[in-house]
């Protein structure tokens, strides 16, 4: 027991901060209905700001803290509130994509501005010994972390009980519509909660950075710990959320003590929060989870089909171009081959998100499973190429069924969170197992196909093999959409209630669509490995899943089901090959930022006409003001006075 004390101390210090992050998340979610995936990214941004002020510009740390917590936090809150207000009546998927886009944007910006290398974040709090328990020294910094966590919780609790705004906040949580009737202004309450929530995020970011070291993705992933805490609090209880954070912190720390030395399990401590998140999503009855903002049905792009001849012409032209690519692009051919692989990936994701109204934040994980499985089948077991490919698809399809288990019960936000947790779990633990990538750093490899006139050594041949598979996939997707299953999927996106009250067992439908989607994502992973030769699990992170979703959303805003897959692949893979400045960080910023905009514009969150009218109105106002100002010039004023005097009887 005594040997556990240091781990418990460390766990309490970090857990208290997870709880603090969780409090901010619950507060904003419950008052606005918007679950902020970018909560951790805001914390990261605050930490980098503090770093710049304190380390680079040598500010005194309390001054830097005041600016990055007291100024940046509330400002971020105001921006978030404005965004949340625009999003609140759109579709749930749009809301998720918008905050995910913001996460990508902030993270991309931080990488681009500060580089991806980890920076040591100085412990600015006093590190001297505060006291000892059973011979274990407890540092002042740790005491302060716990004190800030507990203090913020108690302060928030008192604020919600004692102040007018606080009581109104609780009322918003309970019944937003009723509050407006009582005369309190829900808008003011929402602003207050976003300001408090984002300030908590900033506070968490700065306090936790010294232990995590400064790294944008680590800090953004802080939100996952907060997710776990929030899940324990069932997305509504503040005390349980804070406690949940502490439990996760202590649990992860104690797990480190027992598991870090064991091979294969060393990843476990880091995933305690995902395990908690997944477990809570699996066991909590869906009706116990609060309904967030957003709706399922309506406003989906529809009915705007191109005339047949135009469509046929476009398909022919695109086909001719794709066939000619190897003769046109020279040494850039691998870029186009990779893009073809991504077309399959995007079609598979689009089937879920665009056609069926589901959401997946774990699509890269399916591709990862596909890549590793394909390597085992073809290299280790020596299956023929095509058999190996199909078998791989079946295996990932089965994994899709496993992921569909939470999907059956959950929808919208909670489905997104469950898939996100699943992706993180795959990335951090399952990929390292011998079943998939094993512990080799270089990852796994696979052969290219060799039959008939197709040579494994020729990139051009492989390009055409990929093109053939892409063609088959496109045809399959188009047929699927028109078949009975496709009608059910489109119906499910429009109104699941209508389908289930006419007799369809929606659970089965959801399982089928996840299986089909995972099948194709697995194919993409398998084909990717043939394209690049060797693949390590680093390619298939949750971050990639988020990036794919954002890219598809951006492309989908301006194109159809099949064409958006090609456009997204072009944007993600081909476009950067021609512009040397477009690194992953810049892409993250571009896709993230555009996904936010696309989310705001689609579904009528921001109506262009209203916006244009408002801008025109502002301009008119400005011109009018200039007129007044002109009139106030001495001559004009004198004339006006004279005119007024002349009118006097």
């Amino acid at each position, binding site marked *: 027991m005594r040997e556990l004390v240091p781990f418990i101390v460390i766990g309490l210090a970090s857990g208290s901060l997870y709880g603090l992050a969780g409090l901010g998340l619950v507060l904003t979610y419950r008052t606005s209905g918007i679950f902020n995936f970018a909560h951790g990214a805001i914390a990261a941004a605050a930490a980098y700001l503090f770093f710049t002020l304190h380390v680079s510009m040598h500010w005194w740390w309390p001054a830097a803290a005041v600016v990055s917590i007291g100024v940046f936090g509330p400002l971020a809150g105001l921006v978030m509130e404005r965004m949340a207000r625009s999003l609140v009546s759109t579709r749930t998927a749009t809301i998720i994509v918008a905050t995910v886009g913001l996460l990508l944007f902030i993270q991309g910006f931080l990488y681009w501005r500060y580089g991806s290398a980890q920076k040591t974040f100085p412990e600015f709090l006093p590190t001297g010994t505060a006291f000892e328990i059973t011979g274990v020294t407890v540092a002042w910094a740790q005491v302060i972390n716990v004190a800030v966590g507990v203090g913020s919780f108690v302060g928030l609790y008192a604020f919600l009980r004692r102040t007018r705004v606080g009581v109104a906040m609780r009322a918003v949580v309970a019944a937003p519509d009723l509050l407006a009737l009582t005369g309190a202004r829900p808008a003011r309450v929402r602003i207050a909660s976003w300001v408090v929530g984002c300030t908590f995020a900033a506070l968490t970011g700065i306090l936790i950075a010294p232990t995590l070291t400064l790294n944008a993705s680590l800090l953004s992933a802080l939100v996952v710990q907060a997710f776990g805490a929030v899940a324990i609090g069932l997305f509504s209880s503040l005390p349980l959320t804070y406690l949940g954070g502490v439990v996760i912190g202590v649990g992860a720390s104690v797990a480190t003590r027992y598991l870090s030395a064991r091979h294969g399990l060393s990843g476990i401590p880091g995933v305690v929060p995902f395990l908690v998140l997944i477990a809570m999503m699996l066991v909590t009855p869906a009706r116990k989870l609060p309904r967030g903002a957003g709706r399922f049905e309506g406003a*989906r792009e529809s009915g705007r089909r191109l005339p047949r001849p135009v469509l046929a012409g476009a398909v022919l032209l695109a086909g001719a171009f794709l066939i000619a690519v190897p003769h046109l692009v020279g040494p850039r051919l691998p870029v186009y081959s990779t893009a073809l692989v991504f077309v399959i990936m995007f079609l598979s994701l689009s089937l879920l998100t665009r056609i069926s109204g589901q959401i997946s934040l774990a699509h890269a994980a399916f591709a990862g499973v596909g890549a590793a499985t394909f390597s085992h089948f073809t290299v280790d077991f020596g299956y023929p190429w095509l058999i190996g490919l199909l078998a791989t698809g079946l295996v990932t399809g089965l994994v899709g069924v496993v992921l569909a288990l939470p999907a059956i019960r959950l929808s919208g936000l909670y489905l997104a969170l469950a898939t996100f947790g699943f992706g993180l779990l795959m990335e951090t633990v399952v990929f390292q197992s011998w079943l998939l990538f094993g512990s080799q750093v270089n990852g796994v490899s696979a052969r290219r196909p060799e039959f008939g006139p197709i040579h494994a050594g020729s990139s051009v041949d492989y390009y055409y093999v990929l093109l053939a598979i892409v063609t088959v996939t496109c045809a399959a997707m188009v047929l699927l959409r028109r078949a*009975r*299953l496709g009608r059910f999927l489109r*119906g499910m996106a*429009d109104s699941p*209630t209508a389908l289930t009250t*006419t007799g*369809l067992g929606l659970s089965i439908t959801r399982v089928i669509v996840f299986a089909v989607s995972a099948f194709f994502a697995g194919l993409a992973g398998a084909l990717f490995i043939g394209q690049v030769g060797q693949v390590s699990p680093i390619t298939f992170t949750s971050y990639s899943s988020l990036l794919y979703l954002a890219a598809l959303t951006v492309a989908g805003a301006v194109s159809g089901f099949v064409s958006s897959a090609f456009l997204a692949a072009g944007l993600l893979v081909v476009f950067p090959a021609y512009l040397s400045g477009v690194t992953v960080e810049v892409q993250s910023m571009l896709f993230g930022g555009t996904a936010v905009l696309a989310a705001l514009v689609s579904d009528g969150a921001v109506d262009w006409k209203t916006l244009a009218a408002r801008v025109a109105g502002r301009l008119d106002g400005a011109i009018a003001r200039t007129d007044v100002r002109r009139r106030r010039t001495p001559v004009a004023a004198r004339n006006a006075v004279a005119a007024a005097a002349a009118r006097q009887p």
Partner: protein
Amino acid sequence: MSALTGGEPGAGLDVSGLTVRYGGQLAVDNLDLSAPMGQLTGLIGPNGAGKTTTFNACSGLLRPTSGRVVLFGDDVTRKGPAARARRGLGRTFQRMELFTSMTVSENVALAREARQAGSNPLWQQVASPRQWATVRAATAEALDVCGIAGIAERIVGTLSTGQRRLVELARVYAGDFRMLLLDEPSSGLDKAESERFGAILRSLVTGRGLGILLVEHDMELVMTVCDDLYVLDFGELIFHGTPAETKASPVVRAAYLGSEEVMEAAGLAEHGVG
């Protein structure tokens, strides 16, 4: 199309002791109600009386706090909405639930397809030629009966409210449901449409022997088409009787006091309240 197959003849939907609580709020309190086959049963009451909540509990979208829902003689209280639909319970929604990105005929056909597919993974993916023939015939008939064959290829998202109501009705018609729960099907219809609507409902009940439970605010329609009426107020059953008895009831008048318009339309005001 066979309307009356299986189940006890006459036994439609029976609700006993239904209680639904939202937190501390009692939405429906110990309600007994029965909607037999071959009859149009009305469920009326002021806003917030618990009518839609009763519908949700009957169709399985909501789990009641206590009480039993019996459909064609079988207890379905523990069954989900899809299972109840497959037994022949169809419903429409006050805030219409339509597939807005699909055409009218796709909307109507999908109801029959959903019933055929149920929870069978194979039939969810493809239709057999026989199933497809049934779907086509049912869709054509439903579009024709509801008078919307002319707009069959329009996207539902572009239709007016009145047209959407008809699409929803055509959907439950095509689905071959024997017991229909219709939630304010005539709101948003003009007078002519509403009369046509009433005629369709009567023909479903007398011609095809269906059972209908109707929630409706249009008192004129309710009084002319219903055989039997249940009146709810604040979740409690305050009256049960024929339309004529309901008109005469002082209890019902008291519940509707303040909504003169409704009473006038229903002919309640003729007795003179003040």
